[in-house]
């Protein structure tokens, strides 16, 4: 968050990319795109492009990470070197490590880990093109990939960010809004219970704006949830 800038990101309720404040970018989800992974998903969210693959449940490596009474979720978020304008050095950096860690924990809430003691469920998220909001997009793709793999889950977890630009609370920040906006709030919820499994925030929000941003992100998640279900329905719903 660069904070206050002179850049006009929203004018008369229309954003730079023509969206209204409460409008998501276009999201396209396809389940089951990879052969080797037990479950997979390809997701396009605006210009973001992400592949997710799931392996497992399988024996947990390294051994010392095994839990006697449940499985662990090993999520890994990585960005391709060509996914951003300046070439990103390949491999895990501190940002990717943090995202991987919090996403793993979020999924352990919904995956029925107690069914698979000592096992590991691997969730790999590859960002191949990034234009802001990739952690939410990656999580959303991962949820669909987990469902595609047939891993028992209580629910899928859609993730979506809201934020603030030019003092207006908006849904699903684009690249410019992410760079020059005033706040960014990625949120992931369990739609069936309304519980929050991932929440981050940076920037500046008044208490009222925070309430508004939470409401907006939650409704974004619910919209997304429908798109996720439709994608699975398309793959597994059979003939209508």
């Amino acid at each position, binding site marked *: 968050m660069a904070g206050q800038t002179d850049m006009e990101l929203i004018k008369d309720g229309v954003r730079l990319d023509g969206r209204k404040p409460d409008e998501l970018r276009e999201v396209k989800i396809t389940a089951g795109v990879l052969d080797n*992974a037990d479950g997979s998903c390809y997701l396009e969210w605006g210009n973001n492009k992400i592949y997710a693959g799931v392996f497992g449940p399988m024996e947990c490596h390294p051994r010392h990470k095994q839990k006697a009474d449940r499985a662990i979720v090993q999520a890994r978020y990585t960005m391709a070197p*060509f996914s951003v304008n300046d070439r990103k050095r390949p491999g895990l950096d501190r940002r990717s490590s943090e995202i991987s860690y919090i996403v793993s924990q979020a999924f352990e809430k919904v995956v029925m880990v107690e069914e698979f003691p000592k096992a590991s469920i691997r969730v790999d998220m*590859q960002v191949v093109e990034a234009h802001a909001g990739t952690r939410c997009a990656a999580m959303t793709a991962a949820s669909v990939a987990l469902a595609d793999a047939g891993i028992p889950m209580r629910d899928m977890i859609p993730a979506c960010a809201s934020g603030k630009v030019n003092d207006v609370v908006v849904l699903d920040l684009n690249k410019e809004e992410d760079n020059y906006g005033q706040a960014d709030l990625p949120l992931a919820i369990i739609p069936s219970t309304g519980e929050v499994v991932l929440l981050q925030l940076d920037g500046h929000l008044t208490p009222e704006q925070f309430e508004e941003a939470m409401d907006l992100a939650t409704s974004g998640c619910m919209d997304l949830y429908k798109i996720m279900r439709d994608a699975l329905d398309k793959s597994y719903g059979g003939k209508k």
Partner: protein
Amino acid sequence: MSSDSVSNLMKGHMESLAAEGKRADGRGINEFREVKIETGMINTAEGSSMVHLGKTKVLCGIKLLIGTPYGDSPGSGTMTTSTELAPLADQSFDPGPPREASIELARVVDRGIRESRMIDFDALCIERGERVWMVYIDLHILDNGGNLFDCCTLAAAAALSNAKIPNVQHGIADEDVDLPVTCWPISCTFGRLGDTVILDPTSDEESVMSARLTVAHDEDGNIRAAQKGMNGAFTDAEVREAVKTARKSDNVLREALKGI
């Protein structure tokens, strides 16, 4: 299927099939799987391609950055190839620093492209001895269905043909121009299954074959790079025969590349 899960029965089956000139997937021994090439899907990359070779899927992105040339070639651009065996491509791919297999793969692809002079490095000089374009070829393996060598070489060639030099972004000139590409190096990889040499091995075949040979040719049929891998061996005659076969068989890939 991971390497240790293929039974001896499967090994025997595939070897005896190969001895009769057949393959488990119905191909002939010197036949490539179906090839599909798409380009330009990644907007943040200067060039990009997605290549399907049977079940193998490789995504390649090209980035061009400005840097200083090497002291021994002040008037030439540089090139770096890296491969990411993305963990989602295969259960046996682990995270962490690149392993030997990944490094070998990147270096073989790199040699095929570098030694064929596919990229006109002299045209990548901006200011002699000071500033040149550095070409980064990043190969992301999304699905490992075997024969990553040929699929990666093909993906790199396709993405390079599709790449633009980002002059505008870096304030070098008023318009972006195509990356100067002179020829298309194509590699053909063979595996030794029992006593038979097969082209374009699948991952199942790779897990039971004893040796691998990759040969890269340019369009004029000159051999540009080669690499023998794995702990088995080829006879002298097999190597010579494979090189000849490669020269004939790479036309399928060349045609696919011309179609983009």
